[in-house]
Each structure stands twice: as structure tokens, then as C-alpha cells.
């Protein structure tokens, strides 16, 4: 696949070799460590260390090696299949809709700059400003026909009460709509920022060559912002596969309607808190991490997210 790369300014390109390399190296190294150091530290302390501890907990119970008992118990749990199916359905619905909404709205904003665009950016961002449990509570009101501003629409869809909206298969629809509304705004801002940073000369060249807005978007802009799109995908997959807050908070509005083990993350939480079984909780969390790593790796390799200009040219 051919991708467009940002052309380097001839001035900079010419000036670069003239820079005294030896003197810059230590400064460069220091800069790299200053920039990457805190991240590495946080990754080690809050990422790798907990993951290592989880691995230990999943194999060691009360100081003695438990073998794969916890892992086997997790994979034989009758609730895991349902929870995984719920999360997979949610991801299948939510991820494409989210990506489509983010891409189409960000590209539309970028194609029509002006005052309205700035106002629209804010409008798109607003739903995303309310996140987590607050968003879930807000949506609890939104799906209750008695309090919702969209009650005529809800009645049209035969939703007569919050019980209707949150029970059975309709929960997935509510979570999907809610997930798009909550997450799209922030990503639109990120992607719009990335589009704004694209070199003007490339876009002008496309225009001069007679490329339509659609072709410019598809063949010029999209390849240049692919790393951002990949990042949206990885982040969204991670948060979507770990969906927890939304079903948990929504279930407080209609107790008993949503299973406390509706999602995989909720099941892990129930292991740790309700069942007091940290070994099983650790095993399931690590299994989820493995899925997240695999998904991230696929996206990264497919989109060549970390490919640099130099590696492209090889």
C-alpha cells in the first residue's frame, strides 16, 4: 500500500547534515529520557508491576502454587460466555458506528472551515464532556420516558419505561448510542486537530490536480491521518472491551434488569469483590489484557502506526 509522506522542507533537509552531531547527541539523549522517562516509570509502576502481581495472584493462593485452577475456573464459568458475547456485540455495533461518526464529522468540519465549524466543534464535543458515571446517570434519565426530553421518540420505539429500555436486548442499543455520544466528541476534536496540521501544499496540489472533496479525503487526508485513526481504534477497543461503568451505573436505575456480570470486566469485579476470589479476578483481567494486546498489535501492524518516514522508505 502506498502512503503519502510529509515532504520535508528543503531548507531543513539541507541544514540538517551541517549540524555538529557529536555535541547534540548527549542533549538529544537527555531530551529523550526527559520525555520518555516519566512514561516509562508510570508504565512500570502502574502497568507492568500490577500485571506481574496479577500473574502471581492468578497462580498462587495463600502462598501455595495453585496451578491453573483459577484460570480453569474462569474459563468454565457459565457467565463468561454471556459476558463475552455481550461485549463482542457491543464492540461490533459501537466501534464501526463510532469510527464512522468521528471520521465523517471530522472530515466534514475540515472540508468546510469557518465560524460555523468552530461552533459545531463545541456542539460535537459537549456530550463527551460528561463522561463515566455522570454520563450513565444522565443517560438513565434520557431513557426514562417520564423524564426524558426524547420521550415521544422513546414511545415511538415502544419504550414505555426505563425497565423496557434497560432489559433484554435493548440495553445494547442504549449502550451503543450512549457510547457514541460520550466518546465521539473528544475524538472529533483530536482528528480535526490532526487534519488541521496537514501540510497545506499537499492539499492544494490535490485541489489543483482536480481531485474532488471525496477523493481528497479518501486518498490524501485519510492516509496522512491513519495513525490517529489507529489510535482511536486501539483506545476505543480497549475502553469498549472493558465496558464497566455504563452497565453498572445504569443498573442502579432499574435494579435486577442488568446482570451484575453483564460484561467481562464486571465479572472480574464480581470475582474480586462479591466472591472474594482475587485469583480468578486476576486470571480474567490478564486474559482481557491479552485480548487487548492482541487487538492493539493487529491494529498497529495493519496500519503501520509507528512506521516512520525512514522505515517507509526501506
Amino acid at each position, binding site marked *: 500500500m502506498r502512503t503519502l509522506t510529509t515532504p520535508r522542507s528543503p531548507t531543513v533537509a539541507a541544514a540538517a547534515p551541517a549540524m555538529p552531531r557529536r555535541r547534540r547527541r548527549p542533549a538529544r539523549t537527555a531530551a529523550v529520557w526527559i520525555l520518555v522517562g516519566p512514561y516509562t516509570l508510570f508504565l512500570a509502576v502502574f*502497568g507492568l508491576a500490577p500485571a506481574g502481581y496479577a500473574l502471581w495472584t492468578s497462580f498462587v493462593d495463600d502462598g501455595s502454587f495453585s496451578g491453573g485452577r483459577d484460570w480453569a475456573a474462569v474459563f468454565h464459568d457459565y457467565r463468561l460466555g454471556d459476558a463475552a458475547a455481550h461485549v463482542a456485540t457491543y464492540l461490533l455495533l459501537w466501534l464501526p458506528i463510532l469510527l464512522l461518526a468521528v471520521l465523517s464529522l471530522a472530515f466534514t468540519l475540515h472540508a468546510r472551515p469557518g465560524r460555523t465549524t468552530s461552533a459545531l466543534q463545541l456542539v460535537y464535543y459537549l456530550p463527551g464532556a460528561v463522561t463515566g458515571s455522570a454520563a450513565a446517570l444522565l443517560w438513565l434519565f434520557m431513557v426514562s420516558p417520564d423524564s426524558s426530553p426524547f420521550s415521544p421518540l422513546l414511545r415511538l420505539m415502544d419504550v414505555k*419505561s426505563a425497565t423496557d429500555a434497560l432489559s433484554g436486548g435493548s440495553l445494547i442499543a442504549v449502550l451503543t448510542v450512549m457510547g457514541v455520544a460520550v466518546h465521539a466528541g473528544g475524538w472529533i476534536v483530536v482528528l480535526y486537530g490532526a487534519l488541521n496540521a496537514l501540510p497545506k501544499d499537499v492539499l492544494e496540489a490535490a485541489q489543483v490536480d482536480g481531485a474532488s472533496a471525496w477523493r481528497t479525503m479518501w486518498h490524501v487526508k485519510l492516509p496522512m491521518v491513519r495513525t490517529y485513526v489507529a489510535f482511536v481504534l486501539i483506545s476505543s477497543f480497549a475502553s469498549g472491551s472493558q465496558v*464497566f461503568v455504563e452497565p453498572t451505573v445504569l443498573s442502579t436505575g432499574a435494579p435486577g434488569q442488568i446482570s451484575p456480570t453483564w460484561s467481562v*470486566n464486571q465479572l472480574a469485579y464480581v470475582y474480586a469483590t*462479591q466472591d472474594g476470589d482475587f485469583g480468578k479476578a486476576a486470571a480474567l483481567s490478564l486474559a482481557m489484557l491479552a485480548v487487548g494486546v492482541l*487487538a492493539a498489535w493487529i491494529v498497529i501492524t495493519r496500519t503501520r*502506526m509507528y512506521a516512520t518516514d525512514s522505515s517507509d522508505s526501506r
Partner: protein
Amino acid sequence: MKRWRAASLAAAAAAALVLSGCGGTGGGGGSGDGKGELLVWVDNTRMPAAQQYEKAHPDLRMRIVTIPPDAGYVPTKVSLANRTKSGWPDVVFLANPAEAATLASEKFGYAAPLDDLVPKTVRDGFTPGSLETCTFGGKVYCLRNDIAPTVLWYDAKLMKRYGYQVPKTWAEYQRTGLKAAEEHPGTIVGAVNGKYGAGIYFGSSGCPTRDTRSLTEVHIDLGGPNCTRVADLLQPLAREKAVTTVLPIDPGFAKFGKGDKILMLPAPAWFGDFMFGPAFKVPGGRVAAAPMPTWPGESKPYAGQVGGGAFLVSAHAGARTEQAADLVRWMTTDVNLQARQPTYPAFTAAAKKWGEAKSKDPYYASDPMPALTAAANALRPGFGAVRFEADWQSSFNDTFVKAVDSDGNLRDSLDSWQDKLEAAAGTSGYTVG
């Protein structure tokens, strides 16, 4: 290329690790042990009573912490305290008494048996059957603060206007319900959803959906007549929409009350004060209580249960155990204190005094206390506290309520409910008998 692959895998792992942290859930540690002070966890409603006890015992060092009444909160905190081996409360109030089964289990080992701490004479003062929720393998692990026996609430004004009699048997209840649905469309005579459906109908019928024999044994058998008769009772009522699947605590339920559509509602005692007026907006002078209808072949109107709270003493209280037990005893049995509490006291003498004010409450069309007292004394045995309470509710919704909603065969749905209950019980460490 290989290097790039390895680097990308590492990058993917790092990205996923960092991002996985974003969706995770944190949990704070438990409270400290307070260096000899009695650590008490109660909800907002029980706070003034705990403070009153503290005031009456100036020599006692107490720390009272307010906890939310949310289901799962206490087991969550206790499991964290178990992990850190510190921070257990000496006394805890459970808004959801089913959690006693979790906290008394071997895995948690939190609840202390009270048999030697609270004299039998005191325990005998509780409403018969009310401590069954707290009893596992013959040992009592908690004291009930209040109970929630079910009665047949009805709208006396509508009954009179329609010319109906308050049913005494479930067969009469079914006939009245079907008649009301035909003559006054939209009228409901019951609600079938979650614990409100399962606790009220199946609980009062004595259907063994959660009959605990010990901390590790539970009897579940939905094929028996005590279960199938509930399905047979509700099948025609469901078809004619005389029973609703809207959750009674859903704000959407108010439309039935506002529209004069609640003719009857078998529901717990606390619905009288907290649901009919404030939530359903049924005006004063209309709501009355009757005993639950009688099931075929029985002479006693048995009550189901939905709600009520309990107090537990920690097995880690050590030297403070006696003090903790005394506080729990006082909180649950002091007549003057219990007479002022909002819901039906579990202690018989306190319930009598509590009922004096209720009898005079002008909101009711007639004195509800005879029906409430009868219900409290007729709790159907076999409705135990189980560790799979949440699954008990959601599996009921997934099977029985789904069948009610879709005009399915209710008897058939009992088979799938049985399967789900057995799976839930097995996962929670029970053997199903």
C-alpha cells in the same frame, strides 16, 4: 522486519497496558481498626440510632461510619479488608440481608455466629421465621433490624366503585384480575419483575428457589407444584396484561397510580408508606392492606418477603466482640428506638408499638396493621439468604419475565430458570439438592 514486529508487539502491549488502566476500577482500602475503638458501619437511616447508643455509653470509644445502602458495597469493602488483613468494621448494617450468606461463608469468614453472644430469650423475641435469613447450618449469623412481609395492597375506592370483593384465595385473585382487565382495560393487579415478582409470588407460594440448608447447600426445585401453581396463576393474567413487567421502583410505574389503574398490588409492607403515596401518587384515603391470598389446599395466607435489613458482628472484633454484640442487640430490640424506625421492625414487641402510629395514619383507607401483623407472622419458610442473590433476580428476568413479556409458556420457562439457578448456585460454591 523482525525487529519492527517485536517493537510493534511491545508497543501494542504497552498501549494496551496503559489503556487497560483507563477502563479499570479502583477500590479504596478498608477502614482502619481504630486502635481499640468500636468501628460501626451503618447507613444514613441507622446513623441517629448509632449516635444515640454512643451518647448513652460515654466510656465506649466508637467510630461510626456512614455507608451507602447499595447492594454489594459491604462485601466489596470486606473483601478488601480480608486482602489487607485489617480494617474490618466490628458491626455492620446490611441493607440487603442476603449478603449475610456471603459474609458468613468460609471464603469471607467475616460474620461471627451470635448464638453465644445474644441470649436465646432475646432471639426468641423476634418475629417467627425472621431470623431464618440469618441462620445457616443451625447457627445465627445476624439479627434482623426490619422485615418486609408481603401483603395484598388494594385501592379500596376502586374496589367499591367496580363492585369487587377483596380476594381471599389466589383463584379469586386471578378471577378478579381478569375481570378488571376486561371491564377496565389497563388496570393491573400485580407486578412481575426481579425480586418483586420472584419474592412476592414464588416466595409466598413456598417455591424452593433459594432454600438454604447450610452455607454450602441449597435446595432448588422449580418442578414442584408450589412453583407450577404460580406459573398457572400468572399465565392468563399476563396474557390479559393484568400484571405488568414494569419494575415498581421504575418512575414509569407512577403512570398506573396516577391513572387509577392499580386495583391490587401484592407487595412488601414498606410499599404502604414509601411507594403508593410518594412514588405512585395514589391520593390518601384509598390504599388498604389485606392478607396475601391463600394458595390452594392451604388454610394460612403465607407472606413472601422483599427487603428488610440486618446487623452483623465481625469475627475479627476480638476484645470488642461483647460490645459489638450489645450494640447489635440494642439496635434491633430496643422498643422505643425500633418504634420510630421507618419500616416494619423484626422484633415483635417493637413491631407492636411501631404499629400504634401506623394504625392512626390517615393516608390509609383502613387500619393496615392487622394485615401487616398477620403477614409478619406468616413468613413462608424456605426463602433463605443466598450468595447468588443478584443472579437469582437477573435469571428470573431472563426466563420467567421474558416469557411474561412475550406471551410465552410460563411453566416451560421454569425449566430454564431452574438451569440458571443451579448454575448460579454451583458457581457460588453451593451443592444443589
